[in-house]
């Protein structure tokens, strides 16, 4: 760990005033401290934002929810409004990490988790995400846990968050404040694909702070399911995860949402698949068709072809479970 300066501002403006290319915001620190200890990130300045007034969950005029960036993952997962109206989000959060980590980790920080690619995590190996231009040993190396969708020649890493997969399916919006003012980013646009600049995980500028996540009015509180398939039952990142949500009229699908984790540099979603499901029967045939369509462009690496088969089965399973929830 490199020595750093530490500040704890009490207002957003004061926090933003301290930003710079070598400064990092820190809330729970559940990922950043690891990165610093492993010498993967060497910030010169830590801006502790836990003193900022961003820890509330409130209802919006549109009937949705505004979640402060500092609400802990645990508090969010167990929040009555989330449990009742967005069970998909609650389930996804509880599928991640461990109770200790969820107590510390913040909503905003969860969006900024960095990949668990073995090579990214070992400072002595090349990695385009860590050191642009140094190469990607994962492409031809150990890539069992890597991407099957949206990867590039320079990076095959996957985004590690569970919560973000649910937020993608729920079409959340990210509220951001920077020196230049405030803006909102659609969740689908927040994280990016690696392309030739995998060092950038998302659209956030270094002088911007996530202040809140906004959820639209609940649409899928009756029929949703988060399925996470991993190497052990807890405390492991997803090999494949599926956020599946359905709005049903009897057995017919009024609208559907589908996002995958563990497959790409960002939570993977294709609205065309969801449109295809509209009006179809909530049957395993429909769900398999959705899986086929979503995975049509999947490309395996040497060790992760199983992920395509697994993702297919997981999508059908998650939709089947979603359709069955709330049905007595």
């Amino acid at each position, binding site marked *: 760990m490199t020595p750093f300066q530490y500040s704890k501002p009490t207002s957003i403006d004061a926090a933003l005033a301290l930003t710079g290319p070598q400064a990092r915001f820190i809330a729970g620190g559940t990922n950043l401290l690891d990165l610093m200890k492993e010498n993967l990130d060497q910030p010169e300045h830590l801006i502790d934002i836990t003193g900022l007034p961003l820890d509330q969950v409130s209802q919006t005029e549109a009937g949705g929810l505004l979640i402060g960036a500092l609400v802990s993952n645990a508090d969010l997962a167990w929040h009555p409004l989330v449990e009742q109206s967005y069970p998909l989000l609650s389930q996804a959060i509880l599928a991640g990490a461990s109770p200790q980590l969820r107590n510390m980790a913040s909503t905003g920080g969860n969006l900024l988790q960095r990949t*668990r690619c*073995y090579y990214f995590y070992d400072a002595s*190996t090349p990695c385009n995400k860590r050191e642009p231009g140094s190469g990607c040993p994962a492409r*031809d190396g150990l890539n069992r846990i890597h991407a099957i969708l949206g990867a590039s020649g320079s990076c095959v890493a996957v985004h590690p968050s569970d919560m973000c997969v649910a937020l993608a399916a729920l079409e959340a919006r990210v509220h951001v404040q920077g020196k230049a003012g405030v803006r909102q980013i659609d969740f689908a646009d927040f994280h990016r694909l690696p392309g030739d600049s995998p060092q950038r995980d998302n659209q956030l500028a270094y002088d911007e702070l996530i202040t809140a996540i906004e959820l639209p009015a609940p649409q899928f509180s009756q029929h949703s399911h988060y399925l996470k398939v991993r*190497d*052990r039952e*807890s405390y492991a990142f997803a090999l494949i995860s599926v956020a599946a949500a359905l709005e049903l009229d009897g057995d017919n699908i009024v609208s559907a949402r589908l996002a995958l984790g563990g497959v790409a540099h960002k939570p993977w979603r294709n609205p065309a698949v969801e449109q295809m499901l509209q009006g179809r029967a909530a049957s395993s045939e429909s769900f398999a068709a959705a899986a086929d369509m979503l995975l049509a462009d999947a490309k395996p690496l040497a060790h992760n072809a*199983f992920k395509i088969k697994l993702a297919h089965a*997981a999508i059908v399973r998650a939709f089947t479970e979603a359709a069955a929830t709330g049905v007595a």
Partner: protein
Amino acid sequence: MNTLKPVSGQPMDRVDGPAKVTGQARYAAEYPTTDLLHGSVVSSTIARGRVRHIDCEAALRLPGVVAVLHHQNRPKLAGEDEQYEDADSADGSPFRPLYNDRVLYSGQPLALVVADNLELARHAGTLVRIEYETDAHQTDLLAGQAHPAPAELPKPRGDFQQAYDAAKIRVDATYSTPIEHHNPMEPHASTVIYHPGGNLEVHDKTQGTQNCRDYLHSVFGLPKEKLRVFAAYVGGAFGSGLRPQYQLPLAVMAALQLQRSVRVTLTRQQMFTFGYRPRTVQQLRLAADAQGKLQAIHHAATGQTSRFEDFTEHVVEWSGMLYQCDNVALDYRLVPLDVYTPLDMRAPGAALGLIGLECAMDELAVELGMDPVELRRHNFAESNGNEGKPYSSKALLDCYSQGAERFGWAARNPQPRSMREGHELIGWGMAGGVWEAMQMKASARARLDAHGQLVVSSATTDIGTGTYTVMTQIAADAMGMAPGEVTFLLGDSALPTAPLQGGSFTVSSVGSAVRQACEVLRGKLLMAARSCYPELAGHPAEDMVISEGELHAGRRRYPLGEILPRSGLEAKVVCEPDARRDGYATATHSAVFVEVRVDEELGTVRLGRVVSAIAAGRVINPKMARSQILGGVVWGVSMALHEETLIDHELGRYMNHNLAEYHIPVQADFADIDVLFVDEPDEIVNALGSKGVGEIGIVGVPAAVANAVYHATGKRMREFPLTIDRVLG
């Protein structure tokens, strides 16, 4: 009668429990001392080559950085291989830290940064720049050249090939197991306290303080009187502390060079830079007659080793001793690679070899259409075929029957895929296990003071297994005292000589010495008492107990102060295995029954339940022993389903070297584990009748899990661990 109820056989709580849960127990990296310096190890990033240049300038410029030690500025080290050997060495040239410019493996320590505090040392370590001259490396077992292991294998018996060719029923299967790392909770660490005059007080994470003392003596040419190595508490080791690990000589180098106290703690990533369980490929060929009698066994294993040492363990021997078979051939080969030397890890060899043997036995049972338990009963061996000696005891048949009964095995439908619940196929599998019941020479001292406090000591360790407690129980019973008045000391190289703590032989070796020392001391006490009080001459010895500073004989009490010299009474013994053992084979055995639940679409394998039936002689402390078996079962399941150190052969480097990506099971992966100890009287193994339980719990478990997965799915997987990709593949 004045008898105390014996505490051996009772589930006594850990005597060190309160110290551990209140934080009073200090581990190697927790000993405070004034002006302590902290070392941080800089590790190689290439697998093979030479160090061309080490640039320490940026590190040394930081205020508070005291030194950077490397091969060009280190203190003088021994020059002969023998001087680096230790009590658990492999054949060859032991690794010499910071010795020269050669890089032998990725992760090799190349420099030690010493600074005023740990954070600074770590930071400065990242500023050390090393230039390499890189050579081509090979880290893949399958790509290397094998040579016969320098192991004394049992000679072939009968004629394997002829019997195999002639047999009706045959199995020929190849299994592979991955590299696994010990990863005890406590990382390896050494605190070296530099005393005036150059005496070194060393607190080390080790399974043998005298092994470390002797190593430092020969590597640094320091007189033994100037060295004292302690390991009062060890936070798990599993074999990783059997050899002195490199943090110890590095810390001593810095202490000698700087004449200061120094602590070196390895990072979790560096816990992957020394010994480990080697990758193996094992071919099993079994043949049986139509009634299921084994006709031929061939077990051929290939394991990896380093280029500098040939690490051998008992992988294949078990196949010549667990079952009755007249035609047996065993073969064991090693492939030297650009990696560190493997190291004993819980049930070394057996945990691996029994995967091959017990999976193959399951395959044979399927070929025969025979129940797997019945096949094993049918081939039960009364004697060890490798040695031609009868077993001192072998209650394995009871393990089969009592384990099966507890599990409900009788209800098993042999047909694979015959049980299903929701999305999950359910399978029941079993396997047997075996481990040697060894005894080593050990010594112990027992000392009783006039206040009636008994202190017993031996230079063994307690790696979390319960040695403090069990030795206290043995001493209390042998002395005729309550355990509350007994203190057992260990983990100090100045105490009476003890072997390394490993191989499940501590109770047998040190326990026997403790018992003997206490018996001798009790004899001395009674003799002294009888000379003081002639009326005691006729009093039966077994009716005398020691309590609250008094000798109780019938209704009379005699103050120890009147009997003992002011300095107290002492007895020291050196205890060797009894000659009676020579005519017998001695071993522990187990039968493990496992239920798994397999979701074929998602590729997940969940544990349903486990029954482990153990035959290990007399159990001194059922609570500690059960914990040992529980830990063994958990690790066995981990070997079956989770654990694998991944190596990138292009880089020659372990890549999942952290506890997020190196998967061991978590609580959520576990269900009920039912442990039962079958009755196994043994008058031969040692006076305690106890065989030790540290290893046996893990042996056979991975095979039982894999056999259960086969029963669930009808799919035979021979590549371990059975991860999702393999289940789906």
